[in-house]
């Protein structure tokens, strides 16, 4: 694994997700896909899998595909199982001498297809140890159907099925910590990342995930301008604030060893991350100060828990 990160070389690699797809401007999902596929060594081939969602309906609308590599979409809840079939076919066909090329197996799913409906299929694929990477582009709600709550939706978020209203403050529950759950499958590599200024974090993690033999899981916070309510040009700012408030810590778990990849010099208050997003607008109304306090407490609790895991 390379320790050096040559920004210019990496960014000048040929795109494996062709332009002309129909994803929204400012969509984090598309950035996640491009960043992860850039970590494939240019000489290697891949089969890209995909759960049903925004990405699938926008990047493979018949008769056009945006993928330079082989690609398979099956359904919403089975990206893990589908790619496990592809990967197994690869092993047996290679053993029988029917194919020669080196293929890598990467599948993408939104948080709906990963945290919720596809959770069982993902868990099975990881537990069986297929040599594949499952990448969740986590935008914290069912965006393809119009921003309904998922188990990845943060507490208090205003979604179309947990609307903030006269007697509602948005989603009641806190988010599911899927990266930790995947790490507890004792797979060789699990990591959490998003888009940082030079994309080193996501690139390094994607490369490790792809080239570590066995099952790997990558959770990429991928903001959605429509669902979160920010201006498309603010994508990178939102990501920086998520990381600097410790809402979305960057960490990885390699062979059971937990490691924090980034500790902000000054941990920013959670308001800084919440304020630019329309989905949290109601939290800033007079009388809702306590909700912000609660949100901060949850972030602090999770951050402390993660730090303890990483120090152990």
């Amino acid at each position, binding site marked *: 694994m390379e320790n050096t990160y040559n920004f210019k070389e990496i960014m000048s690699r040929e795109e494996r997700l062709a332009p002309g797809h129909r994803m929204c401007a400012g969509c984090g999902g598309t950035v996640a896909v491009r960043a992860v596929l850039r970590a494939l060594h240019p000489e290697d*081939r891949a*089969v890209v*899998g995909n759960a049903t969602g925004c990405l*699938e*309906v926008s990047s*493979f*609308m*018949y*008769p056009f*595909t945006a*993928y*330079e*590599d*082989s*690609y*398979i*979409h*099956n*359904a919403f*809840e*089975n990206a*893990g*199982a*589908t*790619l*496990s*079939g*592809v990967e*197994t*076919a*690869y*092993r*047996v*066909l290679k*053993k*029988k001498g*029917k*194919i*020669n*090329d080196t*293929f890598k197996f990467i599948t993408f799913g939104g948080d709906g297809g990963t945290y919720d409906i596809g959770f*069982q*299929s993902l*868990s*099975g694929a990881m*537990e*069986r140890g297929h040599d594949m990477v499952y990448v969740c582009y986590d935008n914290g709600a069912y965006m393809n159907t119009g921003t309904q709550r998922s188990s990845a939706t943060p507490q208090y978020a205003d979604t179309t099925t947990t609307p903030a209203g006269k007697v509602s403050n948005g989603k009641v529950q806190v988010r599911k910590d899927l990266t930790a759950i995947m790490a507890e499958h004792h797979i060789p590599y699990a990591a959490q990342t998003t888009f940082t200024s030079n994309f080193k974090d996501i690139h390094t993690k994607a490369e490790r995930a792809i080239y570590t033999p066995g099952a790997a899981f990558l959770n990429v916070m991928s903001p959605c301008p429509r669902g979160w309510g920010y201006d498309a040009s603010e994508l990178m700012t939102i990501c920086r604030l998520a990381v600097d408030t410790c809402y979305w810590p960057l960490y990885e778990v390699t062979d059971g060893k937990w490691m924090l990849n980034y500790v902000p010099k000054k941990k920013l208050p959670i308001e800084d991350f919440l304020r630019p997003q329309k989905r949290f607008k109601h939290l800033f109304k007079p009388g809702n100060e306590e909700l912000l306090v609660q949100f901060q407490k949850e972030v602090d609790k999770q951050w402390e828990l993660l730090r303890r895991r990483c120090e152990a």
Partner: protein
Amino acid sequence: MAIRERLSGNEAVAYAIKQINPDVMPAFPITPSTEIPQYVANYIANGEIDTEFIHVESEHSAMSATLGASAAGARALTATSSCGMALMWEELYVAASDRLPIVLALVNRALTGPININADHSDSMGARDSGWIQIYAESNQEVYDNFLQAFPIAEDARVHLPVMVCQDGFITSHGVENILLVEDEKVKELVGEYHPEHFLLNGKEPMAVGPYAVSNYYMETKRAQREAMKNAKEVILELAARFEEMTGRHYGFFEEYRMEDAEYVIVIIGSAAGTCKAAIEKIRQTTGKKVGLCKIRVFRPFPEEELAEVLKDRKAIAIMDRSEMFAATSGPLGAEVRAALQSAKSQAEVVNYFYGLGGRDITVEDFERVYERLEQIAETHVIEDMYDYIGLRSRD
């Protein structure tokens, strides 16, 4: 020389899998099909086959992984029953629409509600619109023979459709019968090596599977599936001819039993045909009445014209359904056979029976009563109950 053996239906299917030596088998256990993956796992554990087994965590994942493996270029299959198949439902449609030559060993079992582990056809009949070829068996010999023909039918360039090889849970799956096995080299000759034209792992040509197709394109994919299903009729008969040449055993869309002069006819699917044949022999020997049987082997594609041609000039016909479709009228076989007779402008009297749901026994005497009733209907032209039950417990 064919090999004489005594095998259960499950073991016969597993033995066929061993002889075919497919690439990938994802499977999840469910009664009464569980033994099939168990036998295969044993063959793998003893180095007898090269197949990779995927220990999936559900039947939905079983069919999803089978689909992935097949799209990747592998010869792939799975086995299931009842609720396992219901959990695969969504994937059955995807597999057919992706035109993947998957084979499913289905051991028919009643769908839950209430839970029941015995044979009926509610699982496969519910999937009759999913785009799969469906081939049914009366005996262990037939399910073995059907399984050997399944991959060549599915993989034929004119077809490219998945095939469901069905047998009745416990009745044949667990019943041990004498069986003639085909020699390994003959199986290899029949089934051949799989060389897909397009597949995900083709380094020379990337491929994309499973698109989003808007209204401008969706309808043509369904029409293409229909054409493939029509082509399948020809291919199924070709395979049957090759198989007959190899083994001497004859197969078609359906079996005609004592139909040469039959006036009163039963139409049925699956293992109960054996009981019906015993009733026919008994009736013919004791009374000389002209009774016969039409046993459906291929339900999808449905051999409408061929069946109507054979049935249309009989005096009276009883169509026997081993599953409900809750139309409050026919069962699925009843509806389709009647439609076929209508198209052929048949004047035959027709009744429809439900029998054997959830494994309820059907006896030689039951069939004798059906034939007696057919004779009566043919004479009186009065049908009091168009949709009747066999073996139903009475209220008292």
